[in-house]
């Protein structure tokens, strides 16, 4: 069962783009290796070389000391390598059970898939995450009906069902709440004890320190450092990743906005998910929204933006603002940065220019003043420090962090007065995160109001003056000032009153 896999000097090109120029990784049975790097540094590419999804252009893979070549995922699977993909490898129209056991369905003598066995084996796997599901998850539930955290868990269970010798977890915790992450880590520790080798890819530094034994850092397609976790500090790791000293240091703006006039007033918002949400936001405030995933945060932002039906009253600058359509919200100066940037935020195959200008074309007359549009887009790109080959290149050629900048940029082009952000730093590297924090702080100083939902607790605590913690569709707690601590935030997220803790 033991395994030692090493990747040496891996090169991988996609067309003219070099994704990996010198990727290295070594992983052995019974250890967790964290593969770390900023977005676009080649982590996912390296993991896809290890699991045979892409073929390498140079370098060598050694399994137990012997060189090998993966022509397809099949050959990697045979060697006992399975992967939790960042983009998930689930078929939406198929059931949970069919997804998990795809290619390894237990067959009865005539070659018919034995549903009963599949179900039983699925139940067994699901029990690993007992109590972690918010819906009544059954083996025959359709994957497309599941919320994102449960899809993520199914993807994990699917990878584990191969009983792999090497398990690659690519951003496996991105959609999970803290309880689910905790359970996953318990399981990882167990698998490690059973002699599995684990490659762990994550942007959450805290998780890496919690779970990993060793690390390997990628920067621009090159492995720039590797070693034992116990020999390195968080700060040094980040330094390796971004090659700059400007690290994770962000701080709340000192000025309080509590004296500013109230600009958004929400009363008793209700719909299928929300159960009576009321709050006020001051002008220039950066209001955090926290809590476990899927407690109605997304629903709240979509309601404010007029994208889903609700009941209740909303006033914006004294005017009623119960929008029935996002267009009305946009005209009133609202902007929504959606959580799923690939599906809702961007036209992936279209150019950066088109994406940036999409909500604003109406301002460029008829026929379009294309040069002016380009100048404006250029300026926005410079302001956001967008790293791109050119405005005409498709957004799909950008790294995750830069793509996210385009999503924010396209709304900033409209100079909105209130921004609704749905977990904008999800899957974004630390360097870009730091830029985001600076940008958000600056926007608030300019008098813009921001509602900021984040699944990253540290982010909320570091950035916001006030955080609303949602639980099961209502506001569990409002944390302000000194009460805004990590302990309180987590307690409130889990639905525990923080009265005695503060």
């Amino acid at each position, binding site marked *: 069962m033991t395994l030692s896999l090493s990747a040496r000097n891996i090169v991988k090109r996609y067309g003219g783009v070099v994704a990996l120029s010198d990727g290295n990784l070594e992983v052995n049975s019974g250890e967790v290796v964290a593969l770390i790097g900023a977005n676009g540094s080649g982590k996912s590419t390296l993991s896809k070389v290890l699991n045979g*999804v892409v073929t390498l252009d140079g370098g060598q893979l050694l399994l137990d000391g012997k060189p090998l070549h993966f022509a397809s995922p099949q050959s990697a*699977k045979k060697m006992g390598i399975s992967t939790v*993909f960042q983009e998930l490898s689930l*078929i*939406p129209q198929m059931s949970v059970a069919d997804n998990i056991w*795809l*290619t390894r369905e237990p067959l009865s003598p005539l070659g*018919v*898939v034995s549903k009963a066995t599949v179900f039983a084996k699925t139940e067994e796997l699901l029990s690993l995450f007992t109590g972690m599901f918010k819906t009544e998850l059954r083996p025959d539930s359709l994957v497309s009906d599941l919320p994102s955290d449960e899809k993520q868990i199914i993807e994990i269970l699917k990878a584990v069902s191969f009983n792999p010798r090497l398990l690659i977890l690519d951003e496996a915790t991105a959609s999970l709440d803290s309880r689910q992450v905790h359970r996953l880590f318990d399981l990882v520790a167990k698998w490690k004890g059973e002699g599995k080798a684990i490659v762990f890819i994550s942007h959450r530094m805290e998780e890496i320190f919690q779970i990993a034994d060793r690390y390997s850092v990628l920067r621009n397609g090159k492995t720039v450092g590797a070693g034992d976790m116990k020999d390195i500090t968080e700060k040094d790791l980040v330094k390796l990743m971004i090659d700059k000293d400007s690290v994770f240091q962000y701080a709340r703006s000192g000025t309080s906005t509590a004296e500013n006039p109230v600009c958004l007033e929400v009363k008793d918002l209700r719909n299928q998910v929300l159960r009576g949400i009321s709050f006020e936001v001051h002008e220039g405030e950066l209001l955090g929204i926290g809590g476990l995933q899927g407690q109605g945060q997304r629903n709240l932002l979509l309601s404010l933006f007029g994208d889903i039906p609700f009941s209740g009253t909303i006033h914006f600058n004294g005017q009623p603002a119960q929008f029935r359509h996002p267009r009305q919200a946009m005209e009133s100066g609202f902007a929504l940065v959606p959580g799923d940037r690939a599906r809702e935020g961007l036209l992936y195959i279209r150019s950066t220019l088109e994406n940036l200008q999409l909500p604003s074309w109406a301002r460029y007359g008829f026929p379009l003043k294309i040069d002016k549009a380009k100048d404006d887009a250029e300026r926005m790109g410079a302001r956001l420090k967008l790293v791109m080959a050119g405005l005409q290149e498709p957004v799909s050629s950008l790294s995750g962090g830069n793509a996210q900048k385009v999503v924010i940029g396209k709304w900033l082009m409209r100079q909105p007065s209130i921004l609704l952000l749905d977990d904008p730093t999800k899957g974004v590297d630390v360097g870009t995160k730091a830029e985001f924090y600076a940008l958000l702080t600056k926007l608030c100083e300019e008098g813009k109001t921001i509602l900021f939902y984040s699944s990253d607790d540290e982010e909320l605590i570091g950035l916001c003056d006030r955080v609303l913690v949602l639980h099961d569709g209502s506001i569990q707690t409002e944390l302000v000032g000194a009460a805004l601590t990590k302990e309180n935030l987590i307690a409130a997220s889990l639905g525990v009153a923080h009265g005695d803790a503060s």
Partner: protein
Amino acid sequence: MKRLTWNTLLVRYPSLFALILLVLTIAVNFIVQPKLFAIDTLNSNMRVFLPLILLSAGQAVVILGGGIDISVGAIVCIVNTILATRVGLQGSPEAMLQYTALSLLVGILAGAINGFFVAHLRLQPIITTYATSFLYGGLALYILPNPGGGIPAPIAELYRSSTPFGIPLAFFVIAILLLLWGYLRSTRYGNYLYAVGGKAQAAYETAVPVVWLQFSTYVISGFMAALSGVAITMLSGAGNAEIGLAMTLTSITAVVIGGNALSGGVGGVAGPVMGAIALSFVQNIISFARIDTWWETLVKALIIIVALATPGIINLFRRRT
């Protein structure tokens, strides 16, 4: 959550619309043709419907796997011309058997050519099979430039008037077809089909043999088209190099009405079979009600639009309320 329930319903029972349509068309057909359930009427209807049913079943498999096959009608033509020229009006039953076997092989080969281009060379299915449809159609015209030839009348009669146990032959064929499909979909192959059609990239990452699977769907479709060609030749008894061309689009229509998503991964074969029967009944109704034939196109078009639009319209009303 209500919107999800509707989606779930559509994914679980995609052929609901086809079933409703089938019942409706049978009811209307019964009004214009009161003897509909008499064995002779039933047989004369079903033997006409069978070629399209076979074709639609093959098309359904390709579409489930995420592809489409525009060349099926042309494969029907090739088979028809082979039988009409090789067997001939005075041919022996042995010759008919031999050339039927050859025809089926030709169908498989034509499907394999499609499959090679689409699966191995990763060409666009619509464009590829559109192109090969000219190749196969041209070949049919080469074999039989002018309508003529045919198969012996007694052999045609075998297809036209066999009613074993008092049940039209077509029902046995449909029953075998559905049994085979039921078996196929409960095997691992069935799972692969839905996985590749649903999300090919995810299936690939899960180590499903995607290329092999896509290839196989075109082979199945080619084989079914050849069967359809044999059936239509026995029905008409004569050769015509353009006999099957119009059937291609009708087979795709039947699949869509049957509830299969054109993007793949949703649906089955029973739905498309019901869709094919319902479409054939529409044709029947129009000819029996003595309505101008252009109504047929209009009605078919309306049915497709309603089939495609129903889920959207329902969602629209849900949103409003």
